[in-house]
């Protein structure tokens, strides 16, 4: 049977040694964020995840959600677990204290999110969607809407959704058909069909708040004519209780490859009462503020699944006795050696670990910059941090979810045939991981976002927030012998990324096809270089600790860093060659020949 323990030691390392803890504590509202405060929160979060959520993961997958007359039931144990989640105050962790939240920084909340994704991704979907709705409403909603709905989302009493996709439009939201007609009382009437709506209907909360993209009658064509509306399942009464049923129903549940305990709904809106959120026709911009956060959240899903898969693969590799080490028996007392003695098994486990820990570092760095972007008193600092978050969001989403898929597949491989059968739980991680590469903008779209929008924004200003600090870091350590084995490969990858960036920008200006042709390889090159930077910094932090109390932890860090530099980062050479080869060959194939 699989198990899960939150990687608390690594999380503390990142919070206190990888990033500068003073940076977080210098932010207004974060002055108290010392280990004394954070560690117990993470401990408790870890407990909730391993003891309450994790045990429901396999059963939830087996049972799935059911629908009967428009009523959706989540798997057994989910409503109770959700109640515990809310009662523990976990829903309000990173919310604004003005609405009853605890005001914790993203950099702490992100670590909790990772644990939930490891323990039970399908369960995590429900509060995750509420979070998106909370973000959109708190940023774009009127005071009245905020006062009425935010406290309910903060307690977890009500949940939220994001209703974007329609049968004829996924990526291209300009094609939306759902209509919104103004009513006399300042509200709107929403009519249309939405599909793939996560948490669209369920039995965890007493009300559900749908954030719906629709078109007003005078909407300009395309994406500039989309508006955002809030449509509650039950219209709230004056005293804030769910009142009359609104014209929105779940018509069907999708049957999917993974995250089966998450209700993926087809929703029908029929003259449903809605309130405008933000400006008319500016809905996509409003939606994007929550989409950016959601994309980072999806990246963390890949991370969480990779972590739990790694833990179980390690347990199995240490336990499973099979054959002998290539150089001779290492455990002659036992009938066979555990498979962890084999170089290829070690390669697999180290690959998972180096990627997972590297990605966790990148995700935390990003979360910290989000905190700076939100809270720093100096506008220039906020801008710089937000630039970085904008730039790195598609990288985090796509790289971390690709990594999640690769790692869970490797984890399954370590278990051999046992990985492929349901009992061990490893194949569920693979299935659950797959969707993260697809939703919230496919990873191909993320790559286009990176080269098409983020790269050229403000003549490359976003890029500055990555390239300048990384180059400064490399230059400052070029004379430190102990760091040489990390700095040299980092600097090589950085040079490749620099050349590729210049080349993709140059070609892309003349011919967008070229930018599109390079996009996915470029994003991967970017992700690897970002991870190399994180690993160099983690190695430096580990070197500083030397032979202290937890020498083994730091030694393992250094070894993993070395593995990343020696056995993963060289992929940048191949990616760089692929990028430089250009897109001609993609264009060359005639459509009919496919």
């Amino acid at each position, binding site marked *: 049977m699989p198990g899960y323990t939150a990687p608390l030691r690594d999380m503390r390392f990142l919070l206190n040694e990888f990033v500068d803890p003073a940076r977080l504590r210098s932010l207004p509202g974060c002055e108290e964020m010392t280990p004394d405060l954070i560690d117990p929160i993470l401990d408790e979060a870890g407990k909730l995840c391993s003891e309450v959520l994790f045990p429901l993961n396999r059963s939830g997958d087996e049972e799935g959600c059911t629908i009967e007359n428009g009523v959706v039931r989540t798997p057994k144990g989910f409503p109770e677990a959700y109640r515990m989640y809310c009662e523990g105050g976990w829903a309000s962790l990173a919310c604004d204290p003005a609405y009853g939240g605890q005001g914790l920084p993203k950099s702490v909340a992100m670590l909790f999110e990772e644990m939930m994704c490891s323990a039970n991704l399908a369960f995590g979907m429900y509060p995750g969607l509420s979070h998106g709705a909370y973000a959109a409403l708190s940023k774009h909603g009127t005071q009245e809407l905020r006062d009425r709905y935010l406290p309910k989302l903060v307690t977890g009493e009500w949940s939220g959704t994001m209703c974007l996709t329609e049968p004829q439009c996924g990526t291209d939201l300009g094609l939306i058909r759902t209509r919104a007609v103004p009513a006399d009382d300042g509200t709107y009437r929403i009519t249309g069909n939405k599909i793939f709506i996560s948490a669209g209907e369920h039995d965890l909360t007493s009300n559900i708040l749908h954030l719906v993209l629709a078109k007003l009658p005078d909407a*300009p*064509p*395309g994406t*500039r*004519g989309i508006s955002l509306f809030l449509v509650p399942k039950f219209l709230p009464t004056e005293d804030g209780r769910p009142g009359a049923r609104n014209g929105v129903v779940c018509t069907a549940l999708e049957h999917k490859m993974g995250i089966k305990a998450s209700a993926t709904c087809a929703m029908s809106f029929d003259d449903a009462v809605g309130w405008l959120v933000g400006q008319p*026709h500016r809905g996509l911009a409003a939606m994007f503020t929550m989409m950016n956060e959601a994309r980072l959240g999806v990246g963390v899903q890949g991370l969480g699944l990779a972590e739990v898969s790694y833990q179980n693969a390690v347990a199995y590799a240490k336990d499973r006795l099979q054959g002998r080490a290539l150089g001779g028996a290492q455990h002659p007392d036992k009938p066979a050696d555990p498979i962890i003695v084999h170089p290829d098994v070690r390669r697999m486990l180290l690959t998972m670990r180096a990627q997972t820990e590297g990605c966790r570092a990148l995700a935390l760095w990003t979360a910290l910059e989000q905190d700076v972007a939100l809270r720093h008193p100096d506008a220039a600092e906020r801008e710089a941090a937000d630039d970085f978050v904008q730039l790195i969001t598609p990288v985090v989403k796509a790289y971390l979810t690709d990594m999640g898929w690769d790692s869970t597949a490797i984890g399954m491989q370590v278990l051999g045939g046992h990985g492929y059968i349901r009992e061990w739980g490893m194949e569920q991680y693979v299935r659950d991981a797959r969707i993260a590469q697809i939703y919230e903008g496919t990873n191909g779209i993320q790559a286009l976002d990176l080269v098409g929008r983020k790269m*050229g924004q*403000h*003549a*490359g*200003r976003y*890029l*500055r927030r990555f*390239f*300048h600090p990384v*180059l400064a870091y490399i230059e400052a350590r070029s004379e430190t012998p102990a760091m040489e084995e990390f700095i040299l490969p980092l600097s090589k990858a950085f040079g490749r990324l*620099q050349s590729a*960036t*210049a080349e993709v*920008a140059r070609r892309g200006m003349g011919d967008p096809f070229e930018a599109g042709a390079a996009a996915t390889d470029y994003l991967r090159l970017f992700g690897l270089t970002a991870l190399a930077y994180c690993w160099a910094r983690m190695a430096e932090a580990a070197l500083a600790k030397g032979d202290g109390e937890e020498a083994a932890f730091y030694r393992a860090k250094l070894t993993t860093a070395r593995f990343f530099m020696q056995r993963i980062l060289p992929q940048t050479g191949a990616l760089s060659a692929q990028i430089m080869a250009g897109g001609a060959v993609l264009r060359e194939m005639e459509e009919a020949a496919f």
Partner: protein
Amino acid sequence: MGASDRGAPQRSEERSVNQPRRHEAIRKVGVIGAGVMGAGIAAHCANAGVPVVLLDIVPGGAARAVETMLRADPAPFMQRSAARLVTPGNLETDLGLLADCDWICEAIVERLDAKRDLYAKLDAVREPGSIVSSNTSTIPLATLVEGAAREFAESFLITHFFNPPRYMRLLEVVQGPATRADAVATISEFADRRLGKTVIPCKDRPGFIANRIGGLWMQSAINHAFDMGLSVEEADAAMGRPIGVPKTGVFGLLDLVGIDLMPHVAASMKATLPADDAYVLGLREHPLIMRLIKEGRTGRKGGKGGFYTRTRDAEGKTIRRAIDLATGEDRPEARVALESLELRDLRQVAEHPDRGGRYVRAVLLETLSYAASLVPEIADDVASVDAAMRLGYNWRWGPFELIDRLGASWLAAALREAGRPVPRLIEQVGEGSFYRVQDGRLQYFGTDGAWRDVPRGEGVLLLSDVKRAGKPLARNAGASLWDVGDGVACLEFHTKMNALDPDVLAMIGRAIAMGKKGAFKALVIHNEGENFSVGANIGLALFAANIAAWGEIEGMIEGGQKAMHALRAAPFPVVGAPSGMALGGGCEVLLHCDAVQAHAESYIGLVEVGVGLIPGWGGCTAMLRRWSENPRAPKGPMPPVAKAFEMISTAQVAKSAFEAREMLILRPTDGITMNRDRLLADAKAKALSMVEDYRPAEPKTLRLPGPTGHAALSMAVQQQAAMGRVTPHDVVVCDHLATTLTGGPRADHTEEMTEDQVLTLERQSFMALLKTSGTLARVEHMLETGRPLRN
């Protein structure tokens, strides 16, 4: 035997036929009426170096007009000293000043009796044989000279300038049946060569060409905007990019010229045109427009705004509002979102079913069919009509060029579909077009069905004609090299806004190499873009800086310095021929040419500090050299440094070629051409005149003051900073500029420095500045807003 001897035969040839060049026959000009037009015409004659008498009916009015013009922006004078050529006077007492004027231009109130009275007075004082013209825009010539003495009628014509006279290149000239041919020729040549105008002969019909068609277009655009329910923003956007009208569109243009002008123009057209003319039939009084006029909201000049208003809120932020044509209420300006207006192909726009497309179609049908129905009534040919609309209304394409873009047969079908008559000329063209290129020559379709070359003035050489006729000697994405005849090559920039990028630099290198191999004997650097060059491509530099590609940027600076050096060291003459803006790197190109022949409307300067940088392609070094070589500058190492520092640190831009000469960006030996169409020919002649015994300029050494000079400049900057005149980042930029111009920390005025040493300092300062966040923010702001950031 020197150069003067070789030049002699040409001159004696001229003398032998004993015919002075016609434009030299105008030695003094009289302008009557010191309103906006009269004063502007007088100022522009002074720009040409011709003495002018400016008389006004109001005592002191002319002198005040000159004073006002010296403060005006855009400036009517090309240099302040030109104002000294204008003698102001009063119509009552100073009429005698006109006695020795070769040309008297009347620009008084548009009233027939007033004009006739004046002409009678003029006839009493003017020299026989002198030429008289009226700047009227509404009164037919025949009416003006009715009953005048024969000699007066023979000497009389209409010269219709456009506002502002210095800047608008169109001059409509109307002659009467009695007008002497040589009077027309003299004025036309003077206007062409000295005033730089394109002279378009017009028939004596109301509104001549430009205002007749332009007026109908405005009326049509206004009427349809009301009828079809477009907002003013939508109407202006529809007229802008799709049709090629300046971005003010129609309502923005009304705001600019004054909404109150409308009824006057309408009344005069109604009085002079037949009642069944489309112009008269379309005349309407829109209550909203009449209300605006009544309320004194006549546009930008009244201060109350017009269709658009701009006010500032408490925080000083600009609030833009526009009037709702339906309700007459002001509301916030709105962004235009019409699918039709995103299309590039004009026909697709006009066929689009949304209100933008229907509007464009309606206005085009009306305007273009009207234009087609007026040839040959108002002008002999379509080419004249197109030129008049391009130069008088700043349209990108004239009406017949627009018809070609739509297709004449498409227009005919669309007119029939709309139940409108199809003008004969359009029937005549049938499936064909109004323009074609035949054997490399641009030709237009004549009213007799024959093709004729689009006329070019005598001696005019246009690069576009050269390009039409042949293939370039060399070409890449940023620049091309053309053979412009007689062994002269022309280097043309053709990047966006003619920004200088690695492609352009590579082509400079290629051109120099080809010239060294004898492919040509002189090089002209010229293009027909709106601007000669706006400088180095800072977008590329910023992107490279953002990804910390410092080596690449340093390579770009060094490459630029090498290219500039190659221009100067080439074993053949290189002549720069700018028109429009030549900023930053564009200015540095000119500073490294052996000679410059500049269009008078050239705006040149080293503006790098605006983006937080300093000139890095030898601009600092070149200005130090210019001021050191200037015989009038005070002696010692400091004055050249101080002069160069003043000019570069304030990003001073010459507002004309004459001002550039005052700033030593142009040398006294550099030439100025008034007519843009003659620039290339003049530059080519200048280049050819330098070919014989050409020796490239030797590198000079400089004596620079070093740290003491730096301290003096820093002190001056600190004083400015204390007074709040410079920003914190200005101080940083000025410090690097001062270091470069004073020769760096080890310089000493007792020792000579090489140009290479100063160039190294330029590079170092440039790189250091590009690594500051203040400079990166400035570059980004300039790229995104087109305005400098004051950080």
